């Protein structure tokens, strides 16, 4: 059974109203239900309908991943870190920028699927999975970037909590150890949290596919049938996850910020770094989700049914709120540094604002604060997909700049002026391209292999949303099932 045309879900067209203010509630996915079977088929078709353009992009990315990720990294391991641009005093460079950036991206998934789930923000339903995939794939890039950074990566396992032959364990005083444990917790937690709600959808896909896909889904669906017990265990676990992963998420980026804040350095040693990094992470994460959703909607079949203007609108509002919060923390961090008048911090601020990388500093303010402020209050802009994607991209560029300023540019300034040198990336450029390519590559691969829309959650949502007639109008209502 294939869905042949769009008329099935052209609700908004049928109910167009002359006045802009009066939106038909049926423009919203939750009030525009379709039979589950139809939705299943739409999702299945979105996975299997693949144009040559997809393969072209996928092919290019495969080459990029092979060359810029695996070959470049392998070359660096065999040759030594000298092919990177790191030196004294910028011992950390773009690798750490990438790590922070990708961990930031990964925060969006958890935010949407856990926080919005806990607070029952219903518009989240169709894109929780898309966001969670970003978490997992982003963390892969973050982890890879940390390993790229290490001088002797082949000995990485010395950081694992396993003793050596003299019963020497790793150093739990080190923020890097906290980081390792927190990121491990987060990777495992978010991957499990991605997988649990995926099981029913995998079972659905299992029931609707043949050949190797059938085997693939059968193995992954673990024999799920949807019995009362299975649902009960699953929903209980999902509830636990939703609550438990929120503090983990906050802890991860806080601890990442502590890698910097624990150091005795001007500019880094700041107690506001924790929340500042968390909000920065959400900022880039939201932007990235917006970009991904716009691309998904534009390139995958039937996605315009599941992903609608209301979602862009909601995301846009979230982005604006996060942008406010970001501005608050940015200013908080800045004014404390500025007011203190410490000699080194003072020099650091001069360096940031008047030095060769000052353009980055001003662009970060423009992209992260000014542009979101000026645009996102407008609903038209919020609901125009390409504009929202553009703003999301700019936010991510701005956030990348922010991390770049914090890592190598701030590292230039220390308490020994004789050593100050400005860092420029070398092989890091390729490896950065490599991580981006790998992220997109994984995402594209996933879009062919797993249902990006959690159909059962959408159906569940549609079941609890009804239109109630009150007087002469229909009022959207939500019932609490649980």
């Amino acid at each position, binding site marked *: 059974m294939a869905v042949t045309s769009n008329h099935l879900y052209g609700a908004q067209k049928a109910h167009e109203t002359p006045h802009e203010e009066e939106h038909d509630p049926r423009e919203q996915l939750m009030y525009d239900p379709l039979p589950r079977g139809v939705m299943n088929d739409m999702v299945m078709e979105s996975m299997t309908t693949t144009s040559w353009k997809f393969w072209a992009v996928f092919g290019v990315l495969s080459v990029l991943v092979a060359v810029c990720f695996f070959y470049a990294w392998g070359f660096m391991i065999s040759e030594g870190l000298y092919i990177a641009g790191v030196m004294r005093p910028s011992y950390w460079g773009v690798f750490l920028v990438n790590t922070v950036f990708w961990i930031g991206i990964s925060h969006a998934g958890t935010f949407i699927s856990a926080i919005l789930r806990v607070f029952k923000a219903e518009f989240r339903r169709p894109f929780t999975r898309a966001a969670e995939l970003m978490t997992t794939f982003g963390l892969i890039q973050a982890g890879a970037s940390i390993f790229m950074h290490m001088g002797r990566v082949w000995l990485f396992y010395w950081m694992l909590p396993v003793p050596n032959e003299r019963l020497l364990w790793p150093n739990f005083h080190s923020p890097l150890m906290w980081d390792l444990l927190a990121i491990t917790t987060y990777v495992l937690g978010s991957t499990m949290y991605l997988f649990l709600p995926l099981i029913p959808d995998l079972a659905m896909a299992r029931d609707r596919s043949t050949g190797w896909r059938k085997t693939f889904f059968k193995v992954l669906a673990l024999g799920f049938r949807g019995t009362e017990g299975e649902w009960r265990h699953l929903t209980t676990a999902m509830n636990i996850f939703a609550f438990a992963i929120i503090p983990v998420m906050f802890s991860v980026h806080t601890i990442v910020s502590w890698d910097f804040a624990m150091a005795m350095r001007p500019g880094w040693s700041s107690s506001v770094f924790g929340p500042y990094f968390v909000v920065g992470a959400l900022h880039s994460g939201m932007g990235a989700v917006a970009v991904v959703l716009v691309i998904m909607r534009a390139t995958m079949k039937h996605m315009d049914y599941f992903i609608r203007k209301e979602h862009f609108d909601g995301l846009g509002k979230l982005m604006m709120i996060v942008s406010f919060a970001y501005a608050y923390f940015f200013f908080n961090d800045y004014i404390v540094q500025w007011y203190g008048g410490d000699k080194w911090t003072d*020099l650091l601020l001069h*360096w940031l604002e008047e*030095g060769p990388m000052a353009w980055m500093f001003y662009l970060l303010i423009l992209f992260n604060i000014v542009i979101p402020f000026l645009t996102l209050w407008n609903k038209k802009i919020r609901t125009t997909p390409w504009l929202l994607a553009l703003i999301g991209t700019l936010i991510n560029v701005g956030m990348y700049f922010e991390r770049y300023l914090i890592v190598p540019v701030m590292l230039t300034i220390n308490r020994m*002026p*004789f050593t100050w*040198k*400005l860092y420029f990336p070398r092989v890091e450029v390729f490896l950065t391209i490599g991580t981006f390519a790998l992220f997109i590559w994984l995402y594209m691969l996933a879009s062919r292999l797993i249902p990006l829309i959690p159909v059962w959650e959408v159906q569940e949502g549609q079941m609890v949303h009804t239109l109630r007639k009150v007087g002469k109008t229909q009022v959207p209502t939500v019932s609490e099932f649980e």
Partner: protein
Amino acid sequence: MSEKISRRDFLKLASVGAATTAVLTGCGPASRYVEREPYMKMPEYSYNGLSTYYATTCRECAAGCGLVVRTMQGRAIKVEGNPSNPVNLGKTCARGQATLQGLYNPDRIEGPTKQGRGSGVSPLDWDAAIQTVSEALKSNNPSEIAFLMGTGSDHVFDLASDLTNAIGAPAPVRFGALSMFESRATLSKAAENLLGQSAMPFFDLANADVVLSFGANFLETWLSPVAYTRGFAKMRRGNPKQRGYFIHFEARMSQTASKADEWIPLLPGTEGLVALAIGRLVAEAKGGAMPQAFASVDPLEVASTSGVKLETLEHIAQLIVEAQTPLAIPGGAALGQSNGLSTAEAVLALNALADNFGKPGGVFVSPLSPNEDAYHRPTSAQEMTEFIAKMKSGGIKVLFIHGVNPIFELPKSFGFAEALESVSQVISFATFPDETAIASDYIFPDHHGLESWGYQRVATGTTQSVLSGLQPAVSGVYDPNTNELLYNARGTADVLIAAAQLAGGKSAESLPFKDEVEFIQSKLANLIGETDGSFVAPEINTFSAYFQQHGGWWKKTAELATPSASSVLSKSVKVEAAQFAGEGEFFFLPFVSPTLAEAGANKPWLQELPDPTTTVMWNTWVEMNPETAHELGVTNDDVVEITSEAGVVKAAVYLYPAIHPGVIAMPFGQGHTAYGRYATSLGTSEKFMELVPTSQYVNGGKVSPRGANPADVLGAHFNAAGDLAFAGMKVEVKKTGETQALSRLESRIGVYGEGMGEEH
């Protein structure tokens, strides 16, 4: 398990286990990084795990500092100063420390070679080499045989002197760029003129309380830097009640100037006038009759010509008047002027006025070395031009070159390289493939200093009479794979003795020795009876053994000669205006690189030492006042072309905040076109990735100079003592449009505020 594990299985398991351990711990045999096999043949005094120490003498310059070399299993591991040698009392300079990198330099000459002036290189054996030297001695008219030697290796010089003396050849000529830049001829001539004795003056820095230095770069390379640095430290902090005060006059802030309490930049060539003016002001303040020496000078006029304010002169004069033991030292670029000799005399006159001759903190005449009859200064630059003229005219048929690299060290305008073509046979005893060696017919490599026997006379730097001794700390550098010598070198003294004996006649008679050691013993024989020495020995073998053990022989008591001061002040000292060659806008001030000196460029660690004042490594820079640079429209790392009447040189600019705006300065020491992989530049290989065939240097192959040589723009102009007026050039500076990033240790952001906005 009932089955037994066979031995073979056990070994297998064990090796798997070992490999696993190695991988898991990361420090097993699998991860061994540098392999160093023990030599197959160990030296006599070698105990496993214990070091053997040998006392010897540093040959990186002619100062004669004593060294103690730590060796282990036939390898020299570390060089320390010899604490009992009075010259350096256990201290060393950076060049002394890096002498091991000469010993183990990958670019040493591998063995006796028929070099054919770079055309056809073929290895020889030592018999053939001795035959060649012998033929050269025998078949040429003695008057057409010449020895050109460096300022080190006094025993080889003595041996060559005996040889030439016996056969009637001209005496060996000794030259070195350091002595040229130190203006040794000027110093000894000034001493002769004013102190009545041609000798090295000794300045007792340690006991002075106010020191005026007129260009003397005694903390860098001047005469005996380790000894003078010790003197400086004592001057500063030796007296707990009073910290010595130090004033330095020089157009640029040299490393020495940077340690001064007052650095007074002045126009080059006016140092002598300033000395006289200060003398006059001091004499005026002291009252009494104006000494003849200072009578004709007008401080106000000096202030305007030199650019030093009159108040500054008065303030300095006041300091001298109040000082207990003031001292004035002439040296460096102040002497490398057309008026250098009168500058030296003016400064000595200032000392005479302070009445410090022969007093603590004053001026002395350095003691002669124990086996020295009189002070023999190295050949002055002017005398070198005469030597080169003789070469050009065909008056020299065979030239032996030892311990000096004149093609690099002499200004290009002297035409040494061209003159070499008129010499029919050139035999080099170079250890390294330097420019002169590869332009020779034969290279018969001498030992490195740490493999050599010998002695070095100490010309100055200490109050005692010192003869520093050399002995081999290692027997050679071996290839542990084959146990063969990597560098088949032989002591030049041995080669000359063997060749002279082979030649027979007077040559053989003059050198009736079995070997180098016997020759050295013959030169030590007259010290056996001395009772005032560091040791006493009844006969020569014991004396030799003690000589090796102590690293030399020196008098226990100070032997400084006191010059007569009476006549100095009554003599009229006239400092004429300095003459500058060329029409250029800027004064050109070359100075010897404090870390590289004349021959350090092939030691990678010396290349990697930052210059003390600019922190530049591995290259040559042009120091320029930022204002001057602004007017010329150049900035850091812009390559400029410096043109004098004698030549052109190109190097990158360093905006140096502490240099007279009318002066351009450049370090001497780089710009080699040969001399091994570290002294030259190899383009891409500079990244230290590729294997470089040694032939690239030995054949004068495809190498480009590393940095530039300021001697290329020096013309043949001399002062009255015959020393090169190296600071007497005027040059044009032109922007080339090229840039070359100088490697600096310092941060341009942190030190010069680049990119920190307007306020910083």
